[in-house]
């Protein structure tokens, strides 16, 4: 049922001239959890656009003397005045374990400011700037909002860059799957006959191959000397090559069902060309479903990328992704000594949940005509 906060004649008129997308939006709007998740995802994609802006340090900058620093929280007020700062830390080597132990030094405050200057970076690879969301007032100071890893790299900044990689892999891989799924599924459903049989057998074949081994094999086949960017695209293609099959099936089913719809026949009898029937009548009808299905497929892709990278078969250092970050938290020592290195796992969970909630909300809102 179209559940809208509207009543009376005026509302009836508004609904009467509402397009499908409007009806979907009105229904989606009522899904508060999904809307909140969507806002979160939009924020995450802002990070994807400019991870350096959100970073506080160059994610590659290492300093063995600053390894395993714990979290440094941002404090907004100093003596009742708005003046953000983070507590400084002092390290002392434990004489028995010979390990650096960091404690907050309450007497020293590192002043930070918003939209301050820091290291230089390029927005979208074009415009050079040194602005950052948060930066220490003194550029020579280093702050570790989410702590540092064993090489003294800033985890906060690394998560920002990992977000860029992982979220992009998810999006691009799903986009590729959608293209493959819609085109091959569409051909399968619309042309039928031998072509259909061939594509269906191909899908069955791809689906019957266990995915983990096929990924292992394909990733192992990637040349070792490829740049991180090349690896990144290769991984994306590998993910989507396996991922399109479900969508292809769904699109084919929709095509088959839609071919029998009266309004499609009406369009044919009106003299519409095949292409017009497909683009104007059939694709819009299942587009909302495809979007819903895709938003449910992105988290699967993210998990896949994370798993591959975690196993050391996907994106490899020096490239940064959530999986790469988690890989570094792979040993028991980390768990015991630097549990904050598991935070990337939390980020993965939040992102995946958000995608699933948005996907569910979209799926429920997608068909205003189902009742």
């Amino acid at each position, binding site marked *: 049922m179209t559940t809208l906060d509207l009543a009376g004649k005026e509302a*009836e008129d508004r609904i009467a*001239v509402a397009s*499908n997308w409007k009806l979907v939006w009105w229904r989606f709007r009522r899904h508060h959890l999904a809307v909140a998740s969507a806002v979160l995802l939009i924020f995450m994609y802002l990070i994807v656009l400019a991870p350096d802006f959100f970073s506080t340090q160059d994610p590659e900058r290492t300093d063995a003397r600053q390894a395993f620093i714990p979290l440094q929280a941002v404090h907004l007020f100093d003596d009742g005045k708005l003046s953000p700062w983070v507590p400084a830390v002092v390290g002392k080597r434990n004489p028995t374990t010979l390990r650096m132990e960091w404690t907050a030094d309450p007497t020293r405050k590192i002043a930070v400011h918003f939209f301050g200057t820091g290291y230089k970076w390029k927005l979208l690879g074009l415009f050079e700037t040194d602005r950052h969301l948060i930066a220490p007032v003194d550029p020579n100071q280093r702050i570790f909002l989410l702590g540092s890893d064993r090489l003294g790299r800033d985890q906060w900044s690394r998560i920002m860059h990992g977000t860029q990689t992982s979220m992009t892999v998810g999006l691009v891989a799903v986009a590729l799957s959608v293209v493959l799924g819609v085109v091959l599924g569409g051909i399968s459903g619309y042309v039928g006959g031998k072509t259909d049989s061939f594509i269906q057998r191909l899908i069955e074949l791809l689906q019957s191959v266990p995915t983990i081994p096929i990924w292992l094999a394909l990733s192992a086949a990637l040349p070792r000397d490829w740049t991180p960017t090349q690896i990144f695209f290769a991984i994306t293609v590998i993910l989507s090559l396996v991922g399109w099959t479900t969508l292809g099936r769904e699109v084919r089913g929709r095509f088959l069902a839609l071919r029998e719809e*009266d*309004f499609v026949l*009406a369009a*044919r009898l*009106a003299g519409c060309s095949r292409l*017009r029937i497909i683009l104007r009548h059939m694709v819009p009808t299942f587009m909302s479903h495809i979007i819903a299905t895709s938003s449910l497929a992105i988290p699967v892709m993210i998990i896949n990328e994370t798993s591959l990278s975690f196993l050391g078969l996907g994106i490899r250092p020096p490239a940064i992704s959530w999986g790469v970050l988690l890989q570094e938290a792979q040993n028991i020592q980390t768990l015991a000594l630097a549990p904050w290195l598991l935070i990337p796992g939390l980020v993965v969970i939040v992102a995946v949940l958000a995608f699933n909630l948005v996907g569910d909300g979209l799926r429920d809102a997608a068909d205003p*005509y189902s009742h």
Partner: protein
Amino acid sequence: MSDVLPDRGPPGPLTTHDASLEARGPLLEVRGLRKFFPITRGFLQRTVGHVRAVDGVDFTVEEGETLGLVGESGCGKTTASRCILRAIDPTGGQILYRTRAGRVVDLANLPQAELLPLRAEIQMIFQDPFGSLNPRMTLLDNVGEPLLVNGMKNRRERADRVAELLRLVGLRPEFMHRFPHAFSGGQRQRIGIARALATNPRLVVADEPVSALDVSIQAQVLNLLLELQARLKLTFLFVAHDLSVVRHISDRIAVMYVGQLVELAPTDALFRQPQHPYTAALMRAVPAADPRVKSGDGILGGEVPSPADPPSGCYFHPRCRHAEARCKAEAPALREVAPGHFSRCHFAGERVF
């Protein structure tokens, strides 16, 4: 054009609108129309038989008349009408259509490219008022689509024509920016009619246009169809299962049974004296809307046979109370038993059914 039949006179020039040409023959002539669907089995989709959905149907439709095509589900009436629309390709036979330009073409064998310009002349009204309109398009786009694809590219011009069409079917032109979900079943059926009329068609195939509507809405739509026919000189092929509706709207009626035409006659003659036992049984089966008239005598026993495996001889003989040995052995042909009255029964004209 290769499909112009020489025996029906030389192909006239495309612009001719000659009265003498129009007087030459019927608007539509269906000859020996057949449509078989293969029955496939097994992994290799081997064809093991055929459903003879339409198995030799002949009839003509004169310009300006309504021919009712009636029968029970599975009799092939819908398949036959879809063949005429070339929504599906017939297996055999001829569908001779006299175009606006006066040429006679065989729709059954016309290649797609030559069919396309004729689409504007032959339109369809659907049964399901909910499924036949694209829910994602406004009335303007739904009703205007045939205009657009037939060359009316100007949106203003299209909007004017859609407004005119909506008025024609009794809807307010302001509705054109609304989506189909804002309308009731009866209104949607009017929208569907407006779309069918958009390109000034000559032949309209109406497939059960009122059977999905409520009783109080049915009469409105039937009246509209009659009024439009008179005003626009339309020719209707009216496909339906409801005998009283078909009787009300048709000039002549064709009765189908298991893919074959069993009787074809002017409406009055058919109801006064049916010349096929199936037609007679069909009439008796309709419950009279009058408690003082007791219907239910002479109820037909048994079931409609499968078109994949029809009986020998006359398809109706296993259920026919007039059947004799001959009916089982020998398939009757459709023959004219009175002027304009055709029947596919050995005993037509001899017996009263």
